C-alpha cells in the first residue's frame, strides 16, 4: 500500500480501536454467512433407498464459506482507496458505453441487428446457440414490452407474466379449438392480452409504487392459478400440447407433409433439416422483437409516450395540465400487455406445449430484472441485460448447484456498480437544437 498524501486524509488512523472494530465487523459478517450457509450448503438430502431420505452434512463447506466471508470482509475494508477514483473503474466504462451508444444509436443498433440476422448462418453457430438466441430474443421482446409500463409510465408491475400467459393460452386455445394457425392467432393473442391489461388497469388506477406492485403480483398469481384449475378449458396442470408450428407463408417445416401440402424444403428444392425450423423460429422472434422496438420507440416520441413519462414524473402536474391520468395509465397497461401477449403467442408456438409451470412469478421477476438492470427506459440496456440474464446461468452450468449463487452475486454486483442500470441514459423525445448541446443532459 502506498502511503500517498491523499490516502492519509481518507483513511482513519490504524489504532487498536480501529482494528478491533474491523475484526468485530468481519466476525459479524462471518456469523451471518454461517447462519445462511448452514441450511443451504451444510445439509444435503439424499436417497437412502426405499424412498427414504437421509441427510448428509458438509460442515467443512460451511467453515470454508465463513472463512471466505471473514477474509473478504477484511480485504474490503483494507482495500486501497483512491479518493479521485471512488466512482471510476468499471462504472466509468459503462458510463462511457452509455453515452457512446446513445450518441451512436443508429450505428450500434444497425450493427446489432445485422449480427442478429446473420447469427444463424455463421460457421460457429449451432442449434444450441440459435435456441439460446431465441430465448434471449423472447426476453428482449418482453423487456421492451414491460419497459413501456415500468420504464416509461413508472408503474411497477410485478405480474407481467400474466399477459405473457394470456397470449400463450390464447394462441394455444385458438389453435386447438378453432384450428387457427400461429399467424392467424397472433393478432388475437395481442388483443386479448391488451384487454386483460386494461382489466387489470382499472382497479389499480389509484395505486402507485409498493401498493401497485402487490396488486399486480396478485394478478399474475390469479391468472396462473386460474390456468391451473380451469381444467376443462386450459387442461389444468397438463397444459395444452400439439400447438401448431408457424409456417413459412403456408409452407410447413416438416420431413413429410400430408397429401396436397408442399413443405418448405420441397418448395425450395433443398434437403430437409430440422435446423430449418429452428432458424425460422429465431428469425420470426427477431422480426417480432424489432417491430416491438420500432413501435415503442415511435410511441415514445408521440404525445402518448410523453404523457407516460410525464405521469411517471408527476401525476398531479399532469392533472393540472389537463391530461387524463386514467387514459394514460390504461394505455400503458394495455400496450405493455399487448406486447407481452405477442411474445406469449410466439412462446406457445415455439414450445408446442404450454402449461402453467412456464408462467410463475420467477418469470415476472426475470423480466422486471431485465428492465431494471438494463436501465429504466433504455432500449439498448434491455438487450444487454437480457443477454446477460439468459446466458449467465448457461455459463454457470459448469458450477452445478452454485449456479444460482453466482447469478445472485452477479446481480448484486451490477446493482452496486450501476445503481441506475447498465445503460441509464435518456434521449430526449425531441430537441429544439438540432445538435447535442454538450453535457448538459446528464
Amino acid at each position: 500500500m502506498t502511503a500517498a498524501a491523499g490516502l492519509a486524509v481518507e483513511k482513519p488512523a490504524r489504532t487498536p480501536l480501529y482494528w478491533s472494530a474491523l475484526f468485530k465487523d468481519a466476525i459479524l459478517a462471518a456469523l451471518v454467512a454461517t447462519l445462511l450457509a448452514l441450511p443451504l450448503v451444510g445439509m444435503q438430502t439424499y436417497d437412502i433407498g426405499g424412498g427414504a431420505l437421509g441427510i448428509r452434512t458438509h460442515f467443512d463447506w460451511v467453515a470454508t464459506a465463513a472463512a471466505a466471508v471473514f477474509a473478504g470482509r477484511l480485504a474490503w475494508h483494507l482495500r486501497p482507496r483512491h479518493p479521485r477514483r471512488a466512482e471510476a473503474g468499471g462504472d466509468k466504462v459503462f458510463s462511457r458505453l452509455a453515452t457512446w451508444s446513445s450518441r451512436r444509436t443508429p450505428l450500434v443498433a444497425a450493427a446489432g441487428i445485422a449480427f442478429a440476422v446473420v447469427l444463424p448462418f455463421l460457421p460457429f453457430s449451432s442449434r444450441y446457440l440459435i435456441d439460446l438466441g431465441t430465448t434471449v430474443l423472447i426476453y428482449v421482446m418482453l423487456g421492451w414490452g414491460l419497459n413501456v409500463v415500468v420504464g416509461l409510465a413508472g408503474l411497477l408491475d410485478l405480474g407481467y407474466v400474466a399477459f405473457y400467459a394470456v397470449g400463450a393460452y390464447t394462441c394455444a386455445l385458438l389453435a386447438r379449438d378453432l384450428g387457427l394457425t400461429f399467424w392467424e392467432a397472433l393478432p388475437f393473442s395481442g388483443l386479448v392480452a391488451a384487454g386483460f391489461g386494461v382489466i387489470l388497469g382499472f382497479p389499480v388506477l389509484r395505486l402507485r409504487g409498493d401498493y401497485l406492485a402487490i396488486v399486480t403480483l396478485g394478478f399474475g398469481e390469479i391468472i396462473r392459478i386460474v390456468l391451473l384449475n380451469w381444467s376443462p378449458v386450459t387442461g389444468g396442470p397438463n397444459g395444452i400440447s400439439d400447438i401448431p408450428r408457424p409456417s413459412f407463408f403456408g409452407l410447413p417445416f416438416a420431413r413429410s407433409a400430408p397429401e396436397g401440402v408442399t413443405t418448405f424444403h420441397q418448395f425450395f428444392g433443398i434437403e430437409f433439416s430440422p435446423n430449418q425450423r429452428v432458424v425460422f423460429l429465431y428469425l420470426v422472434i427477431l422480426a417480432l422483437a424489432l417491430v416491438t422496438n420500432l413501435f415503442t420507440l415511435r410511441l415514445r416520441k408521440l404525445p402518448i409516450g410523453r404523457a407516460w413519462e410525464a405521469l411517471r414524473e408527476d401525476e398531479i402536474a399532469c392533472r393540472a395540465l389537463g391530461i387524463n391520468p386514467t387514459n394514460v395509465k390504461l394505455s400503458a397497461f394495455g400496450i405493455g400487455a399487448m406486447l407481452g401477449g405477442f411474445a406469449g403467442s410466439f412462446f406457445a408456438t415455439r414450445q408446442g406445449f404450454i402449461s402453467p409451470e412456464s408462467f410463475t412469478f420467477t418469470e415476472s421477476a426475470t423480466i422486471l430484472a431485465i428492465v431494471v438492470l438494463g436501465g429504466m427506459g433504455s432500449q439498448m440496456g434491455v438487450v444487454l441485460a437480457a443477454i446477460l440474464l439468459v446466458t449467465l446461468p448457461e455459463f454457470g452450468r459448469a458450477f452445478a448447484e452454485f449456479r444460482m449463487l453466482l447469478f445472485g452475486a452477479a446481480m448484486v454486483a451490477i446493482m452496486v456498480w450501476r445503481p441506475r442500470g447498465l445503460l441509464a441514459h435518456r434521449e430526449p423525445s425531441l430537441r429544439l437544437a438540432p445538435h447535442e448541446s454538450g453535457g448538459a443532459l446528464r
Partner: protein
Amino acid sequence: MTGASEIRQPLLAVEHLTMHFDGLLAIDDLSFAAYPKEITAIIGPNGAGKTTVFNCLTGFYRPTSGRLAMRAEGEILLLERIDGFKIARQAGVARTFQNIRLFAGMTVLENLIVAQHNALMSASVFSIAGLLGLPRYRAAERAAVERARHWLDKVGLTERADWLAGTLPYGAQRRLEIARALCTGPALLCLDEPAAGLNPRESGELNELLLSVRAEQEIAILLIEHDMSVVMGISDHIIVLDYGRKIADATPAAVRVDPAVVRAYLGEDETGKLAAARVADPAARHARAPDSR
C-alpha cells in the same frame, strides 16, 4: 361577449365558496371576481386558505358549497362540477404549484410539449396518425414546438431548451413552470407563490414577465404571493384572506392602509399608520407569518 358593454364581465366569479376539512373551516363564504387582463393577488397569513382556493378552482378539492363560475366562450362553466383534469382543457384554468412540480427527468422543451398534450393527442388520432407520421400530425407538432419556443423566449430559457428540467437553477424552474402553464393556452392563470425563493433581481424579472403577459394576452392572472414587492408592484386588485374569510378586497393602495389587514398581519395591538407602513415593508410580514414551508 361581443359588443363592449360598459359593465365589465368577470372571467371568474367565485360565489360563497366554503370548504370544510372535517372540523376545520378552511374557506368561509368567500366571494370574489377575476377579470381578463387583470392581475388579482390573494394574500394573507400562512394557513389563511389561499392555496385551498386554488385547489378548489383547479379541481383538486371539491368545495363543500359555493359556486365557481368561469366564463368560457360565452358560456358559464361551473368548475366545481367538472372533473379535475378536464378543467384545464374545458375552462382554460392553468396553475403552478407552491413547491415546483416540473417533470424533472424530462427536458425543458418536453415539459412545454406535454402541456400541449390534448391538442397534439387529437392531431395524432389515437396515435395512429402519429405512428404513421402523417403530415397533419407533423404540422401539429411543429406548431407545438413553435408555441413552446415563443414562451421559452419569453422566460429566457431558449438556450437551455434541451436541458433536463430538474437540472435548472431554482429561479429558472419557477419561470419554466409558468411557461408550461401558459403553453396550455389558459384563460385564467393561477400562480401559487411564483416569487418564493427568488432573489430581488429574479422577482423583478418575474414582475416584468407577468406584466407583459397581462399586456399581450387575454388572460386573467390570480396570484398568491408573500413577496410584497411583487404584490404591490403589479396587482390590479388584492384580496386579503385571514382564517378563510375575506377581510379586504381593494386596490393595492387601499389594502396597504386597511386597518383589518394590518390587524391580521401584525396582531391586534398595532395601530394606525405605523403598522400600515410596515405592511409594505418585506421584513414586517415575518412578524406574524414567517413564510417558511
